[in-house]
């Protein structure tokens, strides 16, 4: 069971990372800086629990807050750049943060040994959880409480006007501006919220791996951060969760029996899924279908709906074949 709790922990933290990019993606900005904010949250939270002996919860919140402040500072210059230049700019920022921690030393002597981050060596012995009686199960529950809180907040935001405003900015900035939306406020807020969530993810990451270093927050992590929401679909938060489960549970752990072919499948499956489902695993149409399905289960029309759904799969395959024929025939 310990293994499954550990896996759920990983899924939880990666979901938070994905959600931090999701919020920013809703406004049409692709941010490769989430790994940088994660790093900030990780180091701040870890320093607070190890060096200042804080309780875990305020330390996590502080990590998220600092990451959010930095994200806010990044959000303003990000307004000047758009599209692919923003991708590169945020990538560069994320790398700059990582390199900052590569050079960051802050050690104090505690109980005869020096503790704290030491540049390239990293920050070791972040043992708040094991030392305070948190078993793997407790940590998993803790992480998922945070994830549930964030997902609920984002879900509620999506159903409110704020969500509509975010998506409006993402769809068409000019139209949104004409409707009276303050673009600056919306985009910077999205960036800040994304930074906070990434900071929370980082704080949790630091505590459940007990050792962090600059290499843990590199370009690959930043890429996975945007991969989750894009692969999962931007229509709602469950898409990101589905993508994280798909990658971490199915691809990484479930396909272990494939040996070293597993890594090859990674890239291949991403390419294939983007071709087969460009809108994400759970795109907008699926969502309405799913809601209709749930509604119909309540009304006892399940069998009919399942037939419709599986018929949908068949017609999707037919459409794909048609598209391929069209693409290579013309």
């Amino acid at each position, binding site marked *: 069971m310990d293994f499954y709790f*550990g*896996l759920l922990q990983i899924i939880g933290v990666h979901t938070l990372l994905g959600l931090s990019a999701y919020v920013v993606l809703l406004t049409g900005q692709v941010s490769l800086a989430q790994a940088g904010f994660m790093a900030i949250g990780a180091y701040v939270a870890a320093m607070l629990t190890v060096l200042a002996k804080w309780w875990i919860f305020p330390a996590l919140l502080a990590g998220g807050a600092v990451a959010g402040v930095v994200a806010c500072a990044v959000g303003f210059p990000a307004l000047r750049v758009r599209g692919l230049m923003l991708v590169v700019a945020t990538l560069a920022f994320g790398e700059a943060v990582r390199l900052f921690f590569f050079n960051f030393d802050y050690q104090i002597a505690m109980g005869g040994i020096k503790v704290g981050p030491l540049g*390239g060596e*990293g920050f*070791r012995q972040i*043992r708040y959880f094991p030392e305070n009686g948190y078993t793997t199960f407790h940590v998993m529950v803790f992480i998922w409480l945070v994830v549930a809180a964030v997902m609920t907040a984002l879900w509620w935001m999506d159903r409110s006007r704020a969500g509509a405003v975010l998506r409006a900015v993402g769809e068409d900035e000019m139209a949104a501006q004409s409707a009276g939306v303050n673009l600056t406020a919306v985009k910077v807020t999205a960036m800040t919220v994304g930074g906070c969530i990434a900071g929370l993810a980082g704080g949790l990451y630091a505590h459940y791996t007990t*050792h962090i*270093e600059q290499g843990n927050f590199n370009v690959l992590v930043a890429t996975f951060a945007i991969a989750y929401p894009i692969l999962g679909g931007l229509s709602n938060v469950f898409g990101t969760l589905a993508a994280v489960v798909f990658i971490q549970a199915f691809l990484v752990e479930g396909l272990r029996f494939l*040996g070293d072919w597993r890594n090859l499948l990674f890239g291949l499956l991403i390419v294939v899924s983007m071709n087969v489902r460009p809108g994400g695993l759970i795109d907008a149409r699926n969502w309405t279908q799913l809601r209709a399905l749930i509604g119909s289960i309540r009304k006892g029309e399940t069998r009919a709906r399942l*037939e419709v759904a599986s018929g949908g799969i068949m017609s999707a395959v037919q459409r794909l074949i048609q598209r391929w024929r069209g693409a290579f025939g013309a």
Partner: protein
Amino acid sequence: MSHARVCAFSAAIALAAWTMPGSAIAQERQVKITGFGALSGVVRSFGVNSKAALEAAADQINKSGGVTLGDGAKGKIVIDYHDDRCNAEEGISVLRRVASSESLVAVAPTCSNVAEPMFGIMQKKFGDAGDTGLQFPVFTDVAIKIGLAKISEWAFRNVPNETEMYGTLFRWIKETKPDLKTLYGGVEEDFAHSRASWYAVMKEVAGKEGLQVLGESKWLLNDTNFSNQAREAKKASPDIMAIAAHPFTTCGMLKEMARQGVRPKLLIGLTSSSSMETLQGCAGEAETIIIPTSFAPINADAQAAAAAVSKYNGSLDLHSGAAWENVFILKRVIEAEKVMAKPDTLQADREKIRAGLAKLAETDGLLGKTKRTPDREAVKPYLFVHAKSGKWEVLHTPSL
């Protein structure tokens, strides 16, 4: 209707395809030893070789009767090997998976950046009821960054002691070449092992042996432009140059030094660079580089072991040699501690193995006896090799 059935059926198959960790119904008693390390990515040769060494060693033991268990029965060693992709989170996940299986001990990991977090989630002090860390013995073969085993009392390592090796090396240099007085370093700053090896080992030890350390040039592990660094080395014009880096950047630096005409009187390299990679990359420029290592096929045992491992598609070198040795050491411990290898004695067996490993003062190695230290590290016999005409040749055997 059939659509739905097909869907449900395939969903069931997919769920079942999730490999449940462990739980094999053993007809004969099995001693499960699990290894894990990097089987993919740039450092995959470490995992591939370790896996081959573990399997070859287990095969040899099984062919000669297996392991004698606590109640006199014979048990077969079964090796499982997992890929952690040199990633901390995945390494931890694999360790938890292994701990939830019927495995008795893990020989892992290959990457130092996985070892540190992994040891961190383990119980720090044995028997500490207030510590919820994982209670599973790990006997490391490859991860070599200095000072990791002291993180947890469940962590043991059979890796070369670099302080000892480089200390002897510098002492030997002082004796045989007393005219060499100055040392300059080249260090890979963003790789845990190389960085620690220069600052915490080579620099310290050289100072103690009376060599004057002039400084160091730094670079990153995927750098390709060494013009600044080579020029700094040229300015320092040291007698001895020590390069604490892995083959890719070691070769890059050596090539640049050759281009700029930087010719120190003696070249020293990092333990991990005494491999085919370095010679493949820059045999010419690396000529005469001296590296201390804990393995070379210089005796019958070592040669037989090397032959056995190559049958399993791996090669025996200083890293996988430790994996080979670990299986035999574990056999000894299992027999001495009377491990039962029964499903209901799982945790007791693991504790016995931990206690047995902790008790060891000395173990058998391929090159001779290995001392074990109180902080669960090893002091392995070692020798110095140097690159000569595209091959590694033994230069000096100090402790044999």
